[in-house]
């Protein structure tokens, strides 16, 4: 039988409805569609897709289980490698990873691996997650700093290995970017909480309101614990550094999204935290963070929501699905356009942004073509709110307070492949080590470090780097 060329569609909310609510956009596959999609998989012997998976899931293995209708077994296969499948099944850039290497891509669309992962994770959650199996206690204690995907994954794996794990989190809620950054309509917080509950069931304790470096130092943790994993993420928002950026109405994407996602400002005044947007909102940048901000603005009632980006559409770093969804929802893309000044009225409220048109020159260090301003091409756009989403730098708090720790040029912590820093017993991973990257890479880093930490705690051997 010939293979069907296209993925089975995943039903989703219609654009004109969904821009009025914060409910999740796709509904996910039903059982029959999942089985049909799973049957598209060729079960290649060399498993090319697996090479694209930072957490090494046996992809053809779990897909085979789905095709056979054994969803429980599929869940076991995934969970043996990935503690947070309901999250990665929603936010992974599959097209660049597993699906990008799928053999069927040669003739059509790859197998919907992400959709299938999501289906299994949701199936398992609805059914009630099984109590995980733990090894017997090793008597070793470990401290994880930060409860984003890197910290949670590392914590879960170490707990399964039988270690006593404590996570220290600066905020009042777990999840890092999963909680404060990625909006409800893309990753429901109920799902993040369920994933966190699973980690807690493994015996992991999460301590909130602990800002490591301030409330307690990393050195103090190292005295009390056998190893430490730093997973504090890339939380430092970058700004454009142009005139008028401190006017009322200009937010960093982090502030805007945190108010809405973590503090639930979209439910103000039931919740106490406010957020203010006007009729016209402009988001600067074209990554996932920018798409999330622009789409959130629409849901808060903006009449017009722009994405303003200095390069062209091929360079946009966001996931395809996000760009697609944003376009369907009516986000206006102004590409090859760069802001040069914000203007306000006499009360200090933002009223306009002045932009300049760009063209693309030769590739820069990132390999993308460098945008160059076109002289005399300025234009003024009237806006009420600006959201700056041009990237985040590694969180500087721990590097600043732990002087001996080796840091790289951009402020990220230097590590080897397994997350070892220059200080014995101290590991780091996720965005704090790589710079802003992806959920799955952060999870992969947490996984590798968990293995290395386990080995270190058992042997106390610290490989000396040349």
């Amino acid at each position, binding site marked *: 039988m010939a293979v069907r060329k296209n993925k089975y569609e995943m039903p989703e909310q219609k654009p004109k409805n969904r821009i009025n609510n914060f409910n999740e956009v796709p509904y996910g596959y039903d059982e029959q569609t999942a089985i049909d999609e799973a049957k598209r998989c060729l079960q290649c012997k060399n498993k090319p897709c697996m090479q694209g998976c930072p957490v090494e899931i046996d992809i053809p293995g779990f897909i085979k289980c789905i095709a056979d209708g054994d969803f429980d077994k599929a869940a076991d296969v995934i969970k043996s490698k990935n503690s947070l499948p309901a999250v990665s099944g929603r936010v992974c850039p599959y097209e660049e990873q597993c699906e990008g290497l799928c053999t069927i891509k040669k003739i059509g669309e790859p197998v919907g691996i992400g959709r299938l992962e999501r289906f299994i994770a949701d199936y398992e959650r609805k059914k009630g997650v099984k109590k995980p199996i733990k090894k017997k206690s090793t008597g070793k204690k470990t401290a994880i700093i930060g409860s984003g995907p890197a910290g949670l994954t590392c914590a879960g794996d170490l707990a399964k290995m039988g270690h006593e794990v404590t996570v220290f989190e600066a905020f009042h809620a777990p999840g890092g970017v999963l909680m404060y950054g990625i909006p409800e309509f893309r990753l429901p917080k109920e799902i993040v909480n369920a994933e966190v509950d699973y980690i807690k069931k493994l015996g992991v304790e999460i301590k909130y309101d602990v800002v490591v470096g301030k409330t307690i130092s990393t050195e103090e943790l190292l005295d009390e614990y056998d190893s430490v994993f730093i997973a504090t993420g890339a939380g430092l928002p970058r700004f454009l550094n142009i005139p008028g950026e401190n006017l009322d109405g200009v937010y960093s994407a982090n*502030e805007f999204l*945190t108010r809405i996602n973590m503090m639930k400002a979209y439910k103000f005044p039931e*919740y106490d935290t406010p957020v*203010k947007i006007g009729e016209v909102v402009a988001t600067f940048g074209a990554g996932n963070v920018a798409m999330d901000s622009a789409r959130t603005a629409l849901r808060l009632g903006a009449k017009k929501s722009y994405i303003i980006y200095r390069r062209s559409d091929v360079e946009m770093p966001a996931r395809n699905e996000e760009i697609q969804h944003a376009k369907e929802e009516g986000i206006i893309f102004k590409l090859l356009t760069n802001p040069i000044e914000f203007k306000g009225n006499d009360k*200090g409220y933002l009223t306009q942004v002045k932009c300049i048109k760009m063209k693309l020159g030769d590739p820069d260090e990132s390999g993308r073509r460098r945008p160059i301003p076109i002289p005399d091409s300025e234009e003024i756009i009237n806006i009420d709110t600006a959201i700056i989403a041009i990237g985040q730098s590694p969180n500087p708090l721990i590097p600043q307070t732990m002087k001996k720790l080796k840091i790289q040029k951009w402020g990220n912590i230097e590590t080897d492949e397994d997350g070892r820093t220059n200080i014995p017993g101290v590991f780091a991973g996720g965005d704090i080590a790589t710079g802003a990257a992806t959920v799955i890479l952060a999870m992969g880093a947490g996984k590798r470090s968990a293995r290395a930490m386990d080995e270190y705690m058992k042997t106390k051997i610290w490989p000396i780097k040349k």
Partner: protein
Amino acid sequence: MYPIVEKKKLSETVKLMKVKAPLVAKKAKAGQFIILRIDEKGERIPLTIADYNRNEGTVTIIFMEVGKTTKQLGTMIEGDNILNFAGPLGKSSEIENYGTVVCIGGGVGIAPLYPIIKALKEAGNYVICILGARDKSLLMLEEEISKNCDELHIATDDGSKGLKGFVSDVLQKLIDNDKKIDIVWAIGPVIMMKVVANLTKKYDIKTIVSLNPIMVDGTGMCGGCRVEVGGKTKFACVDGPEFDGHKVDFNNLMLRNRRFLRDEEEACKMHEETS
């Protein structure tokens, strides 16, 4: 959960609370602040540390009931729990022996000044304090402060206590009397800090102010607390809250502090209607 172990009413709208938070108490230093959230639906607000006791594991906060959250906090009593209480945040004051220091506190700004006064006195400075408020009912910690300083001056807008006028008038007098002043600390309403900084700039007296912009996380993650200092954008929660008063753009701070005024009023009204 962080229990309130003691509550005192300092005036009709100003309350003092001692909160059990051993980890914060252990590390707290003068000039730093905490972020608290009362309950699940609460917002995160910063409050400067007014005192701490490492043995008891308590941190003292003093606040004026101005917005929805501080009003709600004001209704809580001994034994109640605050859901989140994170800190100590921000940089601590740079305490050393400067010589003669003038510490100026306006209104509820007197509270965060108190630990700084104590620390400066302990460091061997000659400490002159100027406390100001609208009227005498809004003055606080007068007794505690008088025990920890060498000179105490008071100014009230209505003359109900001390000099009738502003703290800056007292400072001007000190300067006119040829008092040698090595450094000034000023904490209070933005307008007060601005006036003091403008005055000391004329005489080239170094002046430290403590800024109170709107915050969310308090850890440098959102940039909501950004202020302009010396033409550069700084995050008050991690780079401050204390800055060189001669370099701060106070007008921008006033403007940014008005950002959510209308929402704040709406929340307050809701709070009053429901409580």
